[in-house]
């Protein structure tokens, strides 16, 4: 029986329409609008799919861990409907202030608390902050290897075989378990559950831990501080080039583009 852990982050919907997206510059946070519920970070969904594909072919136990200040049950428990066996929610007011180091530390502590694990899967990077540091951070804290940007993940008896994406292809890497692997979208889209999967998801166990349950310290801002968060001012200038004929306008356009060094 293999034990697989998948880390999934709840994020502001990356496909939110522009008119609904606002930043609270004082709180240094994007505002979660009531109209568009949060979602699971897309690369994390791919990570879960990788776990479920392993589970399709060998007996495995898939545990999903999600950390946040206030998680929406309907959103995170959709991982159970997709096929995960257990959900562990790490929820605490203090987690809202966390940076990547503290997040990785909290999750690593939870993983140690869970005990046995063969493979830890994370998304390549979260869709809101896009740092890509938590997966590698967890590996570093636990003292285990980490392979990033996986296209394909295979789990054997005591090792993983991973196809890792390169700019011009991929390389195949093997590593002994336990190991952390972060996945890209090429691993496959997360399967949509059928109706029975939705029904049975309600019966699967959900564990909730806060900072005290984990025994970690909060209030410590860790290794870096966010100074400012803002949306860039959107400025658009439109200059219409006049000309007596299409040819003349074309010449003017090319000249202008050369001027501003576009071509």
């Amino acid at each position: 029986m293999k034990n697989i852990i998948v880390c999934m982050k709840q994020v502001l919907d990356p496909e939110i329409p522009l008119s609904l997206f606002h930043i609270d510059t004082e709180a240094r946070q994007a505002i979660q609008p009531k109209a568009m519920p949060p979602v699971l970070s897309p690369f994390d969904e791919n990570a879960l799919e990788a776990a479920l594909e392993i589970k399709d072919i060998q007996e495995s136990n898939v545990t999903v861990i999600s950390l946040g200040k206030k998680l929406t049950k309907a959103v995170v428990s959709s991982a159970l409907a997709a096929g995960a066996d257990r959900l562990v929610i790490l929820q605490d007011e203090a987690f809202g202030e966390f940076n990547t180091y503290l997040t990785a530390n909290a999750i690593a502590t939870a993983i140690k608390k869970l005990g046995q694990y063969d493979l830890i899967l994370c998304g390549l990077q979260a869709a809101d902050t896009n740092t890509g540091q938590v997966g590698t951070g967890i590996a570093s804290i636990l003292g285990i290897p980490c392979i990033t940007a996986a296209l394909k993940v295979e789990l054997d008896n005591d090792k993983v075989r991973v196809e890792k994406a390169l700019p011009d292809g991929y390389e195949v890497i093997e590593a002994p378990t336990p190991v952390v692997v972060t996945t890209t979208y090429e691993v496959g889209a997360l399967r949509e559950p059928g109706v029975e999967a939705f029904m049975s998801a309600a019966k699967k166990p959900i564990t909730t831990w806060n900072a005290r349950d984990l025994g970690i310290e909060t209030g410590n801002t860790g290794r870096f501080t966010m100074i400012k968060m803002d949306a860039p001012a959107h400025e658009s200038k439109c200059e219409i080039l006049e000309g007596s004929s299409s040819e003349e306008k074309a010449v003017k356009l090319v000249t202008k583009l050369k001027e501003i060094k576009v071509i």
Partner: protein
Amino acid sequence: MSPVAANYLGIPGYVVFWFLFAIALGFFIQRLYLLIRLLKLGRPENRSDRLFYRFTSMLAITLTQWCSLKSVNHKDLAGIGHAFMFWGLILFVINYLIFIGLGAGIGLFTILSSSAFETVFFSILDVAALLVILAMIWVIIKRYFIKPERLKRKESIGEKIIQPLLITVIVSLMALHYCIEGFGYAAYGIPDSWPFIGVSFAHFLNGSGISQDGLATVYRSLWWLNYIILLGALVYAPRSKHLHPLFSFSNIVFKNLAPKGSLRPIDLQKPETFRISEVNDFTWKELLDLYACTWCGMCHTVCPAQLSGKPLSPRELILSLKEHLLETGPDLLKDKTVTVPAVADEKADAEPDSALAKTSKALIGDIISEDGIWACTTCLACQEVCPSHNEQMVKIIDLRRHLQLGALTEIAREPLKNLRVRGHPWRGSMYARTDWAEGLGIKIVEQDRDVDILYWVGCTGALEDRSLKVTQAVAKLMKQAGVNFGILGEEEMCCGDPARRLGAEHLFQMVAMNNIQLFSSYCIKKIVTACPHCFNTLKNEYPRLGGQFEVIHHSQFIADLFKRNTLKINQARETVVTYHDSCYLGRYNDIYKPPRQVLKSIPGVRLVEMEQNRKNCFCCGGGGGRMWLEENTGQRISEMRLSQAIDTRAQVMATACPFCLQMFEDAAKTREGEESLKIRDIAELIVEALEIPRDLADKA
């Protein structure tokens, strides 16, 4: 002289008569019983409501032959032929019951023969038989010489046999009627002048020189021949492939009385109500459809999927399922304990000797391909045109539910997931639901509950680029008319129609319950929408989930505004317009007049109709969730319909549905050349005609 009064080889005629009848009836009942047991294999379904209405409705439809006559058009008059054949044969059935049953069988023969009743009745039969024979000639010419498209199919041996056999039997029975008349009268006494043909024939026979005994013998022989043919028909009828004369009547009794195009209610908690792994997972009523099919092929020739080259034919679905039921049914009857297998391993896990393992044909794959299942646009043309009131489309949706709810397909995965997560199927839309309303001063119900009407915008109207203009046009008209309305804004969730039509019933129920709760919490009573799909769902499908509201389509609403002079257009606009009926507005809800009234409210508009309009309008191809699926086989349905519009030489093609609008705008882009045809929603045309200020009209 009654033919049964004589003795035959020492046995009294009555004995022979009843003995033969008993045997024939026995065989008839034996086979009928099996056919009914096969129906009972199906899942339960409640169609026993309003039995009196159901029965009288069936009598009205069948006795007037409206079932056949409703599809008659200048290209296909076969319905008329069937009507005459039916009326003629019904009279003959009555004839057989009275004159053979009561006459010969019970012994009223002497009283009946030469009575005034017989004279009148046989006179009518003389004419009826002639009409039936003419109908049979029509059948022969049509089936063997003209060979219309709708009758062309690959037939099994049984199907090939029954057609000429039936024609021969019917013609023989009609001929025998005249012969029995003629020889009977010639032998025993000719009446004065009526029945005309019988009497003429009898006179002819009299002059032929045959002795009275000879005539009487021929008469008796022909009478018994007639009787044996009838008994043979009784035995063979339920064993033949031509089951519709036996079952169409009951199928019409049990037809759908809920709103047109209603789907089967299922219980998501009970997978056995929506899993379809074998033919007996359909309900008994769905199986009865299979018997009632007349093979007329009308559904085949009106199906837009079929006409555009997709691997889907409603006729073939029904007839293949029927064959499958008759083939595997007897085995299924024995294996009554076969339970519906687990989702992942359908046939593989079945017991080696069970019916399931032995089924040579898989429902999905052999009887109908997966491509065929998803090709349906749910336009309802097949169900509208069927003389037996079959529900072909409903079975296709049942198969879709099996695939979606069992997570056996990846079809429409993205739009359905988007609906689940974001409340709408338009993934990739750049808009928020209220972007179209910016600057228009529209009430949002959450902030101001004082509204008389809720304007239900719909996902397409709020999130699809082209459709935003229509939404704004409708809002502008309502404001101009001083209507006190509001919108749900960001709280609005998809009505659920795409989910439901794609088989994802659980997502439909999720969004529907959310919307119903919203309506209740805001005390909404009256809803206006510009989308026929939303209209149909809110009006006809929400009540079953507890949401009963007054729902009005914008064509009805605007037509009413004009009727009451709240809106009035003074300036004439000389335009030639053709109107495209949306399937969900037209066939589903019989709304044909209001959109045309709206168009005619513009002075100077000349309305030209496409050849296929109203009840037999041609689909745009966007229904049934197909708006979100690629169309890679055959011709594009939307392009076919656009060609029909262009053929009318109209300047504008008017629609009243956002799906139709999208489909035709896209078709106009991919079709080469013709860009002169403008495609507009009726609301946009009214706004243009009223010349509502450009700066408000253009905001998008």
